[in-house]
């Protein structure tokens, strides 16, 4: 498998760039001349129409360069007051280490978030380090966080499995979720090993994936083995058995929305080339890309194309496509997404399974979009910046309901769960998506 040689690409591209500071000066001169000309024209027009006030335009740029506003660091305002800012783990891209784990920290790794198997079964992965030697561990609770047991993660060939999914007391783990380095340099993704437990992680067995023509109904999806291409992976919530569905050869690039409930269907965001259009630079033709949704209700056998809001679907090859974790449905009929435009976020809602869309409420949250959660009972939870909003009219309006809880809210058996994202590694649980209870993490290691 080819390496992702970002360093080499950067070095080579920098080497071929020819600095032209004189061109910068010339461009600045042209802009200033154009601005003065436009300003003069506007002044003349103002005189012609009777001198209506056009403030501040004469002699100033028509299109002001936008000074970037500082985006605030994320702060969670919780019941205990202001919480610590989130910290990030270090990564060294130059050495091709893809793992963002800080070696000696207990709560670390790419996804140090609590899994909710249901309203009572909770799991938090961590590591117990003695110097640089770390043991893969997880804490498990069967009583909604009142008591916790600490257990060792399964391992094979010296690599720990990382928790991938939970359904009640059934757990699925997978090793080799991270890249490995070749002896001669470079990195690759090895074939994964799956583990399953049906007793909350007390005992584990290897679970070899079985290739199927259709993923069984009711089997939740998990992220596929990173070393595979065009594969959907699901597990039996009763046994932890793994099934894989393989796409046809030549299938295009697709992002599967794995955190949606299976009852809603299997949803993907796909891109396809639309008509070729000549480049204004070279005159040669190249495809223009479009993003769209596809849904399967029979485990991958057949797929139906669905739309995205027009503002998102255009040209998925450059700027304009939607990100996979911002299209959400819990029942396959009400589908919600949000579009960022400058400082504003606007909801888009479909009530017919993404056949048609309607623009909904717009807010200016002064921060990133965090989560969207349409609930089974109808209201939509929406979090952005430091605030939580709720819509009870299908997304037409949003009402502020309190501080944001965190990110990644999702439906789980018995209700909904949402992780904190401020370094607390804790979780919020709710049976209806309206009233949420905070469950703090255990002390680890």
């Amino acid at each position: 498998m080819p390496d992702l040689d970002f360093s080499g690409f950067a070095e080579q591209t920098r080497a071929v760039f020819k600095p032209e500071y004189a061109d910068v000066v010339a461009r600045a001169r042209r802009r200033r001349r154009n601005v003065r000309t436009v300003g003069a024209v506007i002044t003349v027009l103002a005189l012609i129409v009777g001198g209506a006030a056009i403030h501040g335009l004469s002699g100033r740029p028509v299109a002001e360069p936008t000074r970037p506003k500082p985006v605030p660091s994320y702060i969670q305002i919780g019941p205990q007051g202001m919480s610590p800012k989130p910290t990030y783990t270090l990564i060294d891209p130059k050495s091709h280490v893809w793992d963002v784990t800080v070696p000696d920290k207990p709560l670390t790794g790419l996804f140090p978030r609590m899994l909710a198997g249901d309203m009572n079964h909770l799991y938090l992965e961590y590591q117990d380090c003695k110097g640089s030697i770390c043991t893969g561990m997880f804490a498990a609770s069967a009583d909604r966080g009142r008591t916790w047991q600490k257990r060792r993660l399964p391992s094979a060939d010296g690599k720990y499995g990382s928790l991938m999914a939970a359904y009640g007391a059934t757990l699925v783990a997978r090793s080799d979720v991270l890249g490995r380095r070749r002896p001669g340099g470079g990195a690759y993704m090895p074939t994964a090993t799956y583990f399953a437990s049906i007793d909350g992680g007390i005992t584990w067995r290897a679970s070899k994936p079985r290739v199927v023509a259709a993923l069984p109904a009711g089997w939740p999806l998990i992220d596929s083995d990173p070393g595979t291409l065009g594969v959907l992976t699901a597990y039996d919530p009763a046994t932890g058995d793994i099934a894989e569905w393989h796409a046809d050869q030549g299938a295009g690039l697709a992002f599967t929305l794995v955190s949606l409930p299976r009852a809603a269907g299997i949803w993907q965001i796909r891109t396809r080339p639309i008509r070729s259009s000549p480049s204004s630079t070279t005159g040669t033709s190249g495809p223009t890309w479009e993003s769209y949704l596809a849904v399967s209700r029979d485990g991958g056998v057949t797929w139906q194309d669905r739309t995205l809001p027009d503002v998102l679907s255009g040209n998925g090859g450059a700027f304009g496509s939607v990100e996979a974790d911002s299209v959400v449905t819990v029942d396959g009929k009400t589908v919600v997404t949000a579009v960022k435009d400058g400082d504003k976020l606007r909801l888009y809602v479909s009530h017919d399974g993404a056949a048609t869309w309607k623009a909904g409420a717009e807010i200016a949250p002064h921060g990133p979009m965090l989560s969207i959660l349409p609930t089974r009972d109808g209201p939509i939870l929406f979090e952005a910046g430091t605030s939580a909003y709720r819509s009870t009219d299908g997304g037409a309006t949003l009402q502020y309901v309190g501080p944001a809880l965190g990110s990644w809210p999702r439906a789980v058996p018995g209700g909904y769960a949402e992780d904190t994202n401020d370094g607390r590694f804790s979780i919020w649980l709710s049976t209806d998506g309206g009233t949420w209870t905070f469950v703090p993490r255990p002390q680890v290691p």
Partner: protein
Amino acid sequence: MSPFGVADRRMDVYLPEIYEASAGRLVTQLYGLTGDFAEAQDSVQEAFARALLRPRWLSDVDNPEAWLRTVAINIARSRHRRRKIFAGLVRSGRLDPTDVPPISPDHVALVTALQQLPSRVREAVVLHYIADLPVAEVAATIGCSIEAVKTRLVRGRKALAEQLDDAFVRESNDA
């Protein structure tokens, strides 16, 4: 003597140094984002030109390169939107009409594969792996949560590996 008067004297000395240090890096990052080397150069040159016209803005920021990157990205985005609407308009003042710089085919393939990613994923990948920004700074730059950045990085790497492996297999079969 500055062509822009006494008030810009400080920027006369300051900006060329920033340009020498940063322009190459910024062009590389914009090339990764746009897939068009000429567009990348254009956007970066325009960003510096705007900084030269507004020296006070640049002198007020802690990280001039980050500010210039944001301006260059906004310029590229704005041009992309206008290009869609006004197809056929010819842009003048291009430094180099060539879309593909003289770099190795593997690196061209990497840039091509980057263009297949959704924009949000591509931005995170470029800012982290090419611009070498820490995850938190990537989150602050593109306006999303740290968790979202991590998700995009994982998906981006996976998708790039799949794309490049697919191309690698095709080339091997054709050889």
